[in-house]
C-alpha cells in the first residue's frame, strides 16, 4: 500500500488486513503501562487540514504519537496555506521538508488524489482524511472496525446508511467498504439527498426508514447540515426528523443486537434522539476509540515497511 486515498481502492483482503492490524494494535496496547510503540521512530507525519475537524486530527495525531512518529499539524489558519499558497506548492514544500506521510483534509473532492500525483516519486505517503464529498476512508474503516467488534464477520449483515448521502464522503466510503466486506447496504434518504447515478452503486435504496428498521444489524446516521435546507433538499428540520431521525420509537423497533453509529459531531434531536445516542446500542464512543487504532494500522502499513521505491 502506497497511499490510502479511497476505500474504493480496497478489496476484501486488503480491508480485512487493515482491520486485523487495528485489532492487533488494540490488543497490543491493552493494559499496557506505557502506551507507546517505537515502531515509527524517526518517521514524520504531517497533518494538513483545510477544514476544521478536531476529532479526526486528534485521532491521527494520537495514532502517530503512540507509534513514536513525529507529528506536525498544519492548519489552514496558521500557515501559508491560509495565504493563498496552492495545494500543489504546499505539498511539495512538505515533501521537501521530509514528510514521510501527509494526512490531508480538504474541501475539494479528489484533493488527496492530486496530492498523491504531485508527490509521486518523493516516497511520501498520502492519507485521505476526507476530500470534499468524495471519500473519508479512515472513518469508514473505524466504522467497520466497530461493527466487527460488535457483530463479528460482516458477511450478510444488513447496514442502513441514513440521511444526506448526496453530500457525504462518509457514506461513499462506507458503501464501498461495507460492500467489500460482504455486508448488504441500504441507503435511506429522501430522493433529494441521494446522488443521481446511485442506481449503479452496490446498494439498495429506500425512502422509508420505518420499513427497514426490523431487518437491520446496524444503522449509521449521517450528519445533516442545516444549511442544506437553503438548497431545498428538504422542507424543514422538523419534517426531516419526523421522517429520517432515529427517534426513541425507531430505536426500539431495531433488533436488540443492532448497532447505532454516527460519524459525529451529532445534531442531537435532529438526526438522532439524545436518549438513543446514549444507549448501549450506540457505539459512538467505541467509534472514537477505534479511530485511533485504525489510523495506527494505516500508518503502520504505509510507513513501517519497505516502500516500493526501496524495493526496486
Amino acid at each position, binding site marked *: 500500500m502506497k497511499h490510502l486515498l479511497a476505500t474504493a481502492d480496497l478489496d476484501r483482503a486488503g480491508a480485512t488486513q487493515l482491520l*486485523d492490524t487495528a485489532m492487533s494494535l488494540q490488543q497490543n496496547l491493552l493494559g499496557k*503501562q506505557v502506551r507507546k510503540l517505537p515502531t515509527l521512530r524517526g518517521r514524520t507525519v504531517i497533518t494538513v487540514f483545510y477544514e476544521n475537524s478536531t476529532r479526526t486530527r486528534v485521532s491521527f495525531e494520537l495514532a502517530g504519537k503512540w507509534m513514536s512518529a513525529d507529528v506536525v499539524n498544519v492548519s489552514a489558519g496558521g500557515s501559508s496555506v491560509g495565504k493563498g499558497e496552492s495545494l500543489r506548492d504546499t505539498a511539495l514544500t512538505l515533501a521537501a521538508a521530509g514528510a514521510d506521510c501527509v494526512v490531508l483534509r480538504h474541501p475539494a473532492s479528489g484533493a488527496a488524489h492530486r496530492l498523491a500525483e504531485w508527490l509521486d516519486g518523493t516516497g511520501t505517503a498520502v492519507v485521505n482524511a476526507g476530500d470534499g464529498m468524495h471519500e473519508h476512508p479512515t472513518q469508514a474503516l473505524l466504522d467497520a472496525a466497530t461493527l466487527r467488534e460488535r457483530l463479528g464477520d460482516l458477511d450478510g449483515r444488513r447496514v442502513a446508511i441514513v440521511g444526506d448521502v448526496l453530500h457525504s464522503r462518509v457514506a461513499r466510503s462506507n458503501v464501498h467498504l461495507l460492500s467489500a466486506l460482504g455486508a448488504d447496504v441500504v441507503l435511506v434518504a429522501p430522493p433529494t439527498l441521494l446522488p443521481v447515478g446511485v442506481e449503479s452503486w452496490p446498494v439498495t435504496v429506500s425512502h422509508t426508514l420505518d420499513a427497514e428498521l426490523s431487518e437491520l444489524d446496524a444503522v449509521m446516521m449521517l450528519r445533516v447540515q442545516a444549511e442544506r435546507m437553503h438548497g431545498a433538499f428538504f422542507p424543514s428540520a422538523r419534517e426531516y426528523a419526523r421522517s429520517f431521525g432515529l427517534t426513541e420509537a425507531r430505536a426500539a423497533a431495531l433488533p436488540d443486537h443492532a448497532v447505532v453509529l454516527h460519524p459525529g459531531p451529532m445534531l442531537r434531536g435532529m438526526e438522532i434522539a439524545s436518549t438513543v445516542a446514549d444507549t448501549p446500542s450506540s457505539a459512538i464512543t467505541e467509534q472514537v476509540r477505534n479511530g485511533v487504532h485504525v489510523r495506527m494500522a494505516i500508518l503502520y502499513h504505509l510507513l*513501517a515497511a519497505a516502500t516500493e521505491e526501496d524495493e526496486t
Partner: protein
Amino acid sequence: MAPPSRGADRTAGQPAPRELLTADDVARTIARMAHQVIEKTALGSPAASDVVLLGIPTRGATLAARLAERIAIFSGVDVPYGTLDITLYRDDLRNHPTRPLEPMEVPGGGVDDRVVILVDDVLFSGRSARAALDALGEHGRPRAVQLAVLADRGHRELPIRADYVGKNLPTARDEEVSVLLEEVDGRDAVLLVRPHGDDATGEAEQE
C-alpha cells in the same frame, strides 16, 4: 499474507538441506530444557519463583507451549505461558514488505514481579531478543527476564546470551537454520540450509 515459510517447502534446484536435529532430537532437547528451567527457577520448591513463559511468534510461541507442557509433566507445576509479538519493536521493519502483526497473549496476572522466560526458536544476531525486551518492558516490570532458545547458531550482533540453549549449532553466517515444528510445519526437525545464490531470504538471517 502468510508468514514466510521457514524452509518447509524448498523449491527445486536449491541444495538439499541437511538435517541437524531429527524429530526425536527435538523432543529430547525440549525435555532437557524443561528440566533446566525447573532446576534454575527452583519450580515446585517453597522458594520457587513465579514463572511465565512468553514465546515469540510463530515458532517460539509453539515452543513455549511445549515447554510448559513438559514442565507440568516433570514438576507438576502449571506454568502460565503466552505470546509476545515483537513486530512493532523490530529495528528492521523498513527492510521488508509490511509484516502482519502476530497475536499477543500475556497471561492473566501480567509480568510484574515475575520471572519471564522469553522463548524463541533460533538465536542469531540477538536483535529479536532485544526487540522482545523492549516489548516486554511496556507490559510491566518483571523481577527477571531469561531467554530460552532451541538453537543458538552464533553470530551475535548484540551483547545478548541465552539462559537455556537446546543445541549450539556452529554455522557460517550465510547459512540458514530452519526450525520445523509439528504444529506449524507438519513435522519436527532442525535443518541447515547452505547458501543458494543471491536470493537468500530465509528468516533466520533477518532475526
